[in-house]
Each structure stands twice: as structure tokens, then as C-alpha cells.
């Protein structure tokens, strides 16, 4: 049972071979993906990698994150002792003991303590997985197997060192007790006669666990040990709040219906997933019982790639369709249409996987190549293309909201700000009141502003998120042309969807605008003393604020709307349980506004109930879609005594009396 290089060396070589083959198999599949530049800004990338991969910043954001942190850092530190173990197994003369004592002894202490911490963390992880797993499917044999392997490694390590200590000449014992306290404790449990046996068994157990781990790693979800760090390095440095452009020339393919049409980074994402389930636990579709589960989407892409890899490498047609029946390795259409593009999954993912853009890419295939989509969308698409608004209302009605007031057209020589009213603000009977309130506030503060009137076009947000990139592309170009011709530089929007599209999506078309959401603009006006308040809007009673995904999570504007409410009412709004970057979607983003919701509970009802927990008199929003979703939801739960107000309306109550 003693260590034997003649047996160990071939085993190590075989294991290294299996490890290398596994890594090659998976990473060569990643290389099948389309080109995408993630090599810019290397300095920032290194910083992100240190912060999120080595610093585990996002991992630590959840209760069991600390446990993972311990396992992660133990792994890194124990790389030293494990490398020594492997080398020593082949060349018995190699040993850390050759290091100077000043390094060797502290190193022993670190290894001893860290091994114990890792053992404890692994046991905690096992217990958690048994009694309260992150999600039910997380109780996989694979997960327990890996945890058991790590536990074996740690225990075998104590076995080896314990046996060594139990045989040490007495003069060394004091040093051993100081620098290997845990192993010394184990040594005390070993009968002197059993020392050699314990050493041999532990050594081979350690060898077996280590080699098995090495062989198994690249074939399991623990591949993330190798891929998560580069994945943080290659993350999208800006927020993933837009989708990439497509080029519309004959012969191009559109969207993704085959794994190798994703970019290499998309494919690396699929290999980097830790299956922690954090994304699914914040996904509004998943929570309300829809079949969409962002973790499963990422997993299915990986399985699909593995199943079709050999064929794709030869350029042959894959056997398992990427968009299909929803079995493992294929994503069902209902899954693809369920996404509200709220971005909660991406905000939660500890390794920065970008789930939402992958879903939009598959939508693009369905819309652009197949013309297959939920039937409600046909009208939307035609209305957008024909009349540049979702309802198909005549563009000449765009200015009806301001029929009762004098509003100037935007003129670059005399007007500072363009008020981009947006389709909801122009046509939706409820949102028109928000437009009026905002316009009156701007006038009162003496802001120089104007509108495009009948020439204003839809920004195209819903189309882009729904995968109708072709029509979005035309609308974006049209808007960019109008903005450029009219000399628009600064834009105020009252809709976070217009806000994000003008600000982030149009950048891809070379249009750099200064876009400001009305909540920020109004807050600034009051704080700068340009907008005087005449009283408070205290009659709105107790308020609670709901974050719009496209203002908050996608653009990091969290404080401005809250501050407007506080300035106007004198009290900060109450917070719902899920708020700010953890807020729960109203259900209308990603074009879901225009679709039926057939499966599970309605997302807006879930959110309305959460708001009602705070016993508000008024629910405050900063988005016309949220406004609709809340008003509809309140009617459905028969709580229509609760009002819904946009922040502009809240402020108008205090400023326009």
C-alpha cells in the first residue's frame, strides 16, 4: 500500500490525458461560435475578474456564498499541496519540505487549516443540498459525488499527515503540533501499529480522489472551475441592455436556431454555468409558473452543443434541434416567448452569464426566418411597420395629448430639450395624463423644450426585444436620421423603454444623445431650485415605489424616482420586499405587453400583491407599461381604491396647485 511511482505515474498520465481530452472537447466546441470582440479594455477586464472571480463579489451576495468562497479559496490554496502531491507521486524526491523553514512551516499551517475549513464547507454544502437545496433539481448525484470527492481529499490529507506525525521522532512533535494542529489531532487517534496502514490507505485514497476529480471535472458542471474565471474576464463590461445589430444583406442568416450560430462567448457561457439556480429564483416567468427557466436555457444550449458538436464541426446538419420540443438540449418556443427581458437573471448570475440576449437571438430566428410567433404579435408588427406605434393609431393623432395646451415644436436654434413623448405618452389615454403633468412641470420650471409632434416615431423597443430586428433596424435608422437632421442633442423621455433604446441601442447607429429620464430631470429641477413646490402631495397617502426594469436594472437609475416622491410627499416611499436591482418585473417588458399570458399566475398580479403588502394608498411608478400593468392588476385583485401614479403626477400634485 505504499506510494509507488511505477503504478501512480501511468495512472496520472492517463488521468491527465482524460482531463485534457475533456477540456479540448468542450473548448473546441466553444470555438465553433461566431466571432465577437471581448478583448477590448484588458485592464478593466482584469479588474472585473479579480473582483468577481477571485473576490467572488456576486457569489457572496447570497447566504451560502460564503460557503462557496471558502471552497473556492481552499481550492486555489490547496493547488500548491495537490501539485506537490502529484509530483511527489512520480518523483518521490520532490517535496515542499525542501523549502526554507520560514516558508515551509507557515505553509503547512495554512494547508492544515484551509483543509479543515474546506471539509466543513463541503459538509455544509451537502447538508444544505439534502435539507434545503437551492432548487429541487439541484439534488443531483453529480453534485453529491463531487462534494464527496472533495471531502475524501481533505480527509485523506489529514490521514496522510496524521500518520506521518504519529511516526515522528518526539523532537519534531512540538513543531508538528504548532503548524499542523488538525493533523496532529488526527495523529492522536491513530494507533501506533496502524500508522503505516493508515498512511498507505490515505495516500491512495487521496490519489484516487484527485485523479478521479481531474478526469471528471471537464465532463461535469464543475467545468465551471475552469471556465468561470475567464467568463468573468470576458463579461460584457457595459450592462447587457441591448442586443447586437444584424446586417440585412441577402445570404446572411438571422438569429440563432443552431448552437454554432451563437457567438463563442454565448457558448462559453453555457460551459461556465455553475447551475447555482440563482437566475431561476429571480426570473418572473419562472416564479409565476411559466416554462421559462433561464438556468435550463443555458443548460440546454450546452447539451445541444455537446450532442451536435461532431456534426457541427463537419458543417453537417445537427440532429437535435436547438429550438424544439423543450426536451433536454432543446428550447421550446413557449420558453422563448416567455421572457420579459427584465434582466434579473443577468443581475443575479455570479459568473455573468448573459441569458437574455440568447433568448432574443432565438426570437430573431423565429420572427425573421420563420415568421412564427404568438398570433397577437402580427398586429403589433404591422402597426409598428405601417404606423410606427403599437396600436396602429394614425400618426396625425400623436399631438392630441397636448390639444389643450400650447406646446412648441422642437427647433434646434431655440429649444434646448426634445421631449420624446413616446407612443404610450402620446396615445394611451391614461399615460396622456402623465405627459400633460410633465409638460406643465417643464413649463413651470421655465425649461426650454419642444416636441417632434406628428413626426415623432416609435423608438422600436418592443420590436427589438421581440426579435423583429429587421423592422427595428429600419425604425432606428429613421429615428437617427430625424434626430440628426433636426439637430437633437438632449432628450427627455418619460418611458424607460424609450430612454434605454435612445440611450443605449441607438449608440450602435452612431447616435450619441444626452438622454435623461423624466424622474432624474424633475429631481434635478427641484433640487436646483428651478421648480418651486407649492405644498406637498401628502394627500396621495402612503406610497410605495416600483422599479421599472429598464430604468433600474438596465440603466442603474434607482434613486431619482424615489427622491422625486420624497421631495413631493415629504416622506420616502415604502419599499417592496424585492426592490432596486432585485426588483420584480411588472410583466410588460420584452414585448410581453402585447402578448397574452396563458400559463401560470399573471406576473403583474404577483407584483401587485407584493405592493399591497406595504399597505399603500398610492403605488408610484416611472414607466407607462408599469402604470398599465398595475392599474389592470389592481382591478383584478379588487383593490381599486389604491391609486397608481407616475412620479411626474406625484410631483405635479405638489408643484402645480
Amino acid at each position, binding site marked *: 500500500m505504499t506510494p509507488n511511482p511505477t503504478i501512480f505515474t501511468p495512472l496520472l498520465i492517463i488521468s491527465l490525458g482524460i482531463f485534457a481530452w475533456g477540456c479540448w472537447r468542450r473548448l473546441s466546441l466553444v470555438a465553433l461560435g461566431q466571432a465577437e470582440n471581448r478583448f477590448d479594455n484588458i485592464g478593466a477586464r482584469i479588474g472585473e475578474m479579480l473582483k468577481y472571480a477571485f473576490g467572488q463579489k456576486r457569489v457572496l451576495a447570497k447566504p451560502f456564498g460564503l460557503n462557496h468562497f471558502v471552497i473556492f479559496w481552499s481550492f486555489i490554496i490547496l493547488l500548491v499541496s495537490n501539485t506537490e502531491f502529484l509530483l511527489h507521486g512520480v518523483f518521490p524526491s520532490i517535496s515542499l519540505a525542501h523549502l526554507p523553514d520560514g516558508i515551509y512551516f507557515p505553509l503547512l499551517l495554512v494547508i492544515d487549516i484551509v483543509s479543515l475549513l474546506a471539509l466543513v464547507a463541503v459538509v455544509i454544502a451537502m447538508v444544505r443540498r439534502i435539507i434545503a437545496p437551492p432548487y429541487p433539481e439541484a439534488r443531483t448525484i453529480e453534485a453529491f459525488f463531487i462534494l464527496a470527492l472533495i471531502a475524501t481529499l481533505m480527509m485523506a490529507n489529514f490521514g496522510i499527515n496524521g500518520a506521518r506525525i504519529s511516526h515522528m521522532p518526539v523532537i519534531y512533535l512540538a513543531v508538528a503540533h504548532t503548524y499542523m494542529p488538525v493533523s496532529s489531532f488526527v495523529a492522536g487517534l491513530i494507533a501506533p501499529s496502524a500508522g503505516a496502514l493508515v498512511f498507505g490507505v490515505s495516500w491512495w485514497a487521496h490519489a484516487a480522489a484527485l485523479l478521479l476529480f481531474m478526469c471528471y471535472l471537464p465532463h461535469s458542471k464543475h467545468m465551471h472551475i475552469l471556465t468561470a474565471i475567464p467568463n468573468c474576464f470576458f463579461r460584457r463590461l457595459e450592462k447587457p441592455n441591448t442586443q447586437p445589430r444584424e446586417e*440585412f*444583406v*441577402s445570404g446572411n442568416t*438571422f438569429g440563432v436556431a443552431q448552437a454554432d450560430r451563437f457567438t463563442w462567448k454565448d457558448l462559453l457561457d453555457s460551459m461556465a454555468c455553475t447551475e447555482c439556480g440563482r437566475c431561476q429564483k429571480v426570473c418572473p416567468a419562472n416564479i409565476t409558473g411559466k416554462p421559462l427557466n433561464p438556468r435550463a436555457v443555458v443548460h440546454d444550449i450546452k447539451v445541444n452543443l455537446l450532442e451536435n458538436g461532431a456534426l457541427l464541426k463537419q458543417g453537417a446538419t445537427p440532429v437535435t434541434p436547438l429550438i424544439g420540443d423543450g426536451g433536454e438540449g432543446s428550447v421550446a418556443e413557449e420558453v422563448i416567448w416567455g421572457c420579459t427581458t427584465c434582466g434579473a437573471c443577468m443581475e443575479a448570475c455570479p459568473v455573468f452569464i448573459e441569458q437574455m440576449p440568447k433568448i432574443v437571438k432565438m426570437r430573431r430566428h423565429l*420572427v*425573421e*426566418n*420563420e*415568421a412564427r*410567433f404568438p*398570433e397577437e404579435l*402580427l398586429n403589433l*408588427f*404591422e402597426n409598428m411597420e*405601417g*404606423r410606427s406605434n403599437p396600436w396602429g393609431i*394614425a*400618426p*396625425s393623432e400623436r399631438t392630441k395629448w397636448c390639444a389643450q395646451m400650447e406646446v412648441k415644436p422642437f427647433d434646434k436654434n431655440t429649444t434646448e430639450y426634445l421631449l420624446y413623448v413616446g407612443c404610450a405618452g402620446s396615445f394611451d389615454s391614461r399615460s396622456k*395624463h402623465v405627459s400633460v403633468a410633465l409638460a406643465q412641470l417643464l413649463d413651470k420650471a421655465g425649461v426650454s423644450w419642444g416636441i417632434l409632434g406628428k413626426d415623432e416615431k416609435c423608438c422600436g423597443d418592443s420590436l427589438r426585444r421581440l426579435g423583429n430586428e*429587421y423592422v427595428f433596424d429600419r425604425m432606428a435608422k429613421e429615428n437617427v436620421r430625424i434626430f440628426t437632421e433636426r439637430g437633437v442633442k438632449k432628450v427627455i423621455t418619460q418611458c424607460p423603454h424609450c430612454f434605454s433604446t435612445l440611450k443605449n441601442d441607438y449608440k450602435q447607429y452612431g447616435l450619441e444623445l444626452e438622454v435623461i429620464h423624466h424622474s432624474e430631470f424633475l429631481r434635478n429641477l427641484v433640487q436646483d431650485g428651478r421648480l418651486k413646490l407649492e405644498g406637498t402631495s401628502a394627500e396621495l397617502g402612503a406610497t410605495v415605489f416600483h422599479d421599472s426594469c429598464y430604468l433600474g436594472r438596465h440603466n442603474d437609475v434607482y434613486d431619482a424616482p424615489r427622491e422625486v416622491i420624497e421631495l413631493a410627499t415629504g416622506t420616502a416611499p415604502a419599499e417592496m420586499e424585492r426592490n432596486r436591482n432585485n426588483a420584480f418585473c411588472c410583466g410588460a417588458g420584452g414585448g410581453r405587453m402585447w402578448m397574452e399570458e396563458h400559463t401560470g399566475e399573471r406576473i403583474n398580479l404577483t407584483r401587485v400583491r407584493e405592493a399591497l403588502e406595504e399597505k399603500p394608498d398610492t403605488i408610484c411608478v416611472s414607466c407607462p407599461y408599469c402604470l398599465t400593468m398595475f392599474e389592470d392588476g389592481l382591478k383584478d385583485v379588487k383593490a381599486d381604491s389604491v391609486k397608481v401614479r407616475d412620479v411626474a403626477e406625484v410631483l405635479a400634485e405638489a408643484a402645480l396647485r
Partner: protein
Amino acid sequence: MLVVACIKQVPDTTQVQIDPVTNTLVREGIPFIVNPYDTHALEEALRLKDRFGCKVAVLSMGPPNAEATLRKALALGVDMAILLSDRVFGGADTLATSNVLSAAIRKLNSEVDEVGLVLCGKQTIDGDTAQVGPGIATRLAYQQLTLVDRIDNLDVGGKRIRVSRKLEGRHEIVEAPLPAMLTVVRELNRPRYPRVPMRLAAADAQVEVWNNQVLKLDEQSIGLKGSPTWVSKIFSPERVKGEILGDGYADPEGTAALLIDKLLAKDMLPL
């Protein structure tokens, strides 16, 4: 068998205004669309193509810019698109229009393939006459099946068709031999959405233009000269402006009560 769909480019009438001075349609800046009823005729032709492998030709008579309408049809998958455009076709009423369209269909019948069906929308949203389809059937001596909301059966080999006609308060199932001209209503189908690769191909595709040198029609039977009817005046009936009752947003219930009182006062609410 060749299926011919006739489509027309019309101004988006919801956006059309009438010039009060000249009493003509103000067409400037008004976008054009495919006449909505015609989109259903086109869709049905494409479905017949999918089911029976018929060839589909689409015809449109109009000014040169009506080519855009034909490109939309190409993007949806028709095999050929022909624009009937010539100055001498201009100013046509329904009779003169049906003369031109019939001549084109005859030409397709002799040069491309035997025409089995001609599909038209039940009417256009700008002229609203519903006469051109029946006019074509008459000129060509085809069976005439109007207001079709369902094709029950098409026997391509036996050259027969059975359709359902949507009439006021009832449906009529009619069977007829081919060739036949059908005018269709919206309930017939849901038009498809174009796929991007087809849109891109349509942008490069050839739209054939046939003028009167191709059709060689007697100038007395086409255009203004061939039109026994002409529009002498278009006007919008004067609308007496109503009144805005209350404030429905601030006080929905009170406003509804105002309305009810008003209707009661005018004896318009049977109680």
C-alpha cells in the same frame, strides 16, 4: 394551374384628409398600404400554392410607385408580380380598370399557364365600389363568387370549387366550375408575415411592368376615355361638434351619471 391575385395600392384612409377647398383627397405625405381586403386574397392564393402547388401571379394597376405594393407580395412568396402602368390607364373607373386587368389575365392565361382562379378583395377602402372583381368575371366570362369567407374544396383536376359566401345573417355554400373569380372577405384567413430572407430577395427581384404597348387595348376602352363614370366631388359630411361631459378621469362615476341623465332627457335610454 395559375392563380391570379389582384391587389391595389391605396392611401391609408385612416390618415387621409379631404381638402375643404378643392374637395379632393389630400394625398401628400399619406403612406400607401395594400388594400386590406386584397391582402386576404393574396394570402389565399399563397395558401393554394402551399397546398396544391399552383403558381401565383399578382397583378396591380397603378402608378409606377405601386411597385412597392408588388414587392410586398413578392416578399410573401408569389411567383410573379406584374405592374400594369401607363399614362393612358389613368383616370379609370371600375369598367375601364376591369378592362385592363382582364386583358392582363388573358395574356397570363395564354403565355404563362392556364388561369384557374382570380382572387380579389371584396372592395377597396378608397373607392368602396366592389365592382372591379365582378367586372373582371364578366369580361372574362368566369364564374363569379363574391364575398367568400371559406374555400371548402378545390378540385384542381376536376376543375371545380366549392366555397362559402358570407351574406347578411346567413352563409351560402356555392359550387362552381373553374375558371372562377372570387372576391374575398377578411374572415377568410389571416395574412402571413414576411420572412426576412424573402424581403431581401424581393428588394432585388424583377417587377414586370406592362404598359399599353404590351396589352394593346383600344384607348377608347381604358383610362379616362373608357370610363363612363367620373367623380365630380368628394366631401366629408359636416360633423356638428359634440360636447365634452364632465371629467371622466377625475370623476368617472359622476361623468357616467351625467351621460345617463343626458340620454334620459333626450329619451334615448329605454327604461
